[in-house]
């Protein structure tokens, strides 16, 4: 997930979606680039998008659905305005990421994959960001954060909300 901020996501537009599909259709194995681009534009890969992709690539809807649901990145509905991806892999665990994540989730009042009630923030687990010597780490709207503690995350979230 590129963590593109969701306010930039546009409302569903079949014409625009078809353009995006056409832009990538010439690639060898165009499915993933198309799905990624659609999600980038619309914030998720909806049923309507699945139908269009299936038509364009001459596949069944079931086949496209199978691909969309296989990969953790693709979402069927948009996430909150901001996306926090907290790393739960071993290197971060060695630096206390599980306790930190529990504290963050408790503070926000959400569970993993949950969105705060104001729709502002979605929190997701991620398994390794390659920031393993500056653990615990996270991505906030696609930007890396390292050597995290609760204060630093709180500050970063406040900055993001204010921006």
């Amino acid at each position, binding site marked *: *997930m*590129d*963590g593109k901020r969701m306010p930039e996501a546009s409302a569903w537009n079949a014409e625009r979606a078809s353009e995006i599909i056409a832009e990538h259709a010439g*690639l*060898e*194995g*165009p*499915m*993933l*680039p198309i*799905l*990624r681009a659609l999600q980038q534009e619309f914030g998720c890969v909806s049923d309507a998008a699945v139908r269009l992709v299936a038509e364009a*690539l001459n596949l069944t809807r079931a086949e496209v659905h*199978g*691909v969309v649901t*296989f*990969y*953790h*990145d*693709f979402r069927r509905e948009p996430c909150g305005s901001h996306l926090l991806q907290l790393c739960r*892999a*071993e*290197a*971060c*665990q*060695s*630096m206390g990421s599980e306790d930190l994540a529990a504290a963050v989730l408790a503070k926000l009042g959400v569970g993993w994959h949950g969105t705060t009630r104001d729709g502002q923030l979605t929190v997701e687990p*991620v*398994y*390794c*960001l*390659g*920031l*393993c*010597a*500056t*653990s615990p*780490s996270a*991505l906030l709207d*696609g*930007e*890396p*954060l*390292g*050597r995290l503690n609760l204060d630093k995350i709180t500050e970063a979230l406040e900055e993001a909300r204010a921006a």
Partner: protein
Amino acid sequence: MTRIFVPKDAAALAVGADKVAARIAAEARSRWLAVEIVRTGSRGMFFLEPLIEVEMADGRVGYGPVSASDVASLFDAGLLTGGAHALRIGKPEEHPFLSGQTRLTFARCGIIDPLSLGDYAAHDGWNGFARAIAIGPQAIIAEVTKSGLRGRGGAGFPTGIKWKTVADTAADRKYVACNADEGDSGTFADRMIMEGDPFALIEGMTICGIGVGATKGLVYCRSEYPHAGKTFSEALRIAREARYLGPNIQGSGFTFELELRMGAGAYICGEETSMLESLEGKRGVVRAKPPLPAHKGLFARPTVINNVLSLVAVPTVLDRGADFYANFGFGRSRGTMPIQIAGNVRYGGLYETAFGLTLGEIVDDIGGGTQSGRPVRAVQCGGPLGAYFPRSLFHTPYDYEAFTACDGLLGHGGIVVFDDTVDMALMARFAMEFCAIESCGKCTPCRIGATRGVEVIDRVLAGVKPAENMVLLEDLCNTMKFGSLCALGGFVPYPVMSAVRHFREDFVPRALAAAE
């Protein structure tokens, strides 16, 4: 105009490198000082990040770790003339963490502007390519074979033999697929290369393409690495414009085109056949072998699949010669390995060295023990599918064979350090849980075994027939190890069983543990 180097490696950004760069620019402006800020990759000394370097007549002087609030005091101390300051580390290459390394693959990383073709060429870039087109495909493969280079992605398969298989297989077209789906926790070497020296990967893949007769390459980069993806795709554009990619590269008569593909968050796509499925636009479900990808790979065409580190080692092999490369190393593990020291460690970072150091030297001497200051209890080598090593195995030499002999694997070169607060039963449980989350679902031992594994460990910890369930866990691990289709289910027994074998005292009912 004084040049100041500030990394834009994601790990440096994660600890505030952008804010430091902005503050340096502002501070210089307000003091009427002329500085040029050059953004580089990282030297790999993450404990010093953000590590800034100032160019002097006789080399660079480093300061780190710098936070934005340090910048004014650095200028006060005479930053531009290498002035004394508490954060001054002297010449970076003389720092003990760097001076002991043999940097072949990472020779340029952290030094050059990653997107400057001029910098790349000035630091031996394209020399390997020049020799490759001079000696031709057969000699390229002979050279790589002779160097003893083995796949740095984890399996350690001889690279030259793989290339020869693809070269010898007749087909209408062939592919080079680079595995940059670096999903193992504790590893970041591929990311550092793509962000810090992307042209080296382009050069390595081009040489491979010429060697095996492939005209198209694809790099499969994980989506958790958005910065690596951005830098590499920019590098592709620059290389294409300068005719280092495309038809008739640099007038050599060889054609090679390269594309970047981003994954979509599936650990299994680091498995080579699953990666091929994903590149073809399908679910990342593992393929049964045979056929080998070298015979029938991407779109059923002969395909070289190599890790970033294997491909980036190739320009050095060609430029300096096979003997030069093979001269480093130990036993059948030739050349250098970029070891990544991570987790709860004092001096975490990338340490490229010839094979043969002991694990203890890496963790205690180079890594400096834990960051928490507590004793090292366990290290996990080779990612989430790698074994946990106790201190009693710290004499093990860091090479493919020695690690295999004690039921471990080097994997992609990651080492994650844990202090004595780690609960190894929970780490074993996590290994199973991770496997359950990431299993592609094709084979039963992995798909069902991983979930059953979590349940069995939970029963042990809940005090439900713990002795019987420990026997069951071992039996389950055997089934997964020998019955799984690929290394996900097949290797997850390594972390689990190594935890059981070396840290059995942690596998006790939690009520009992609390009472003790």
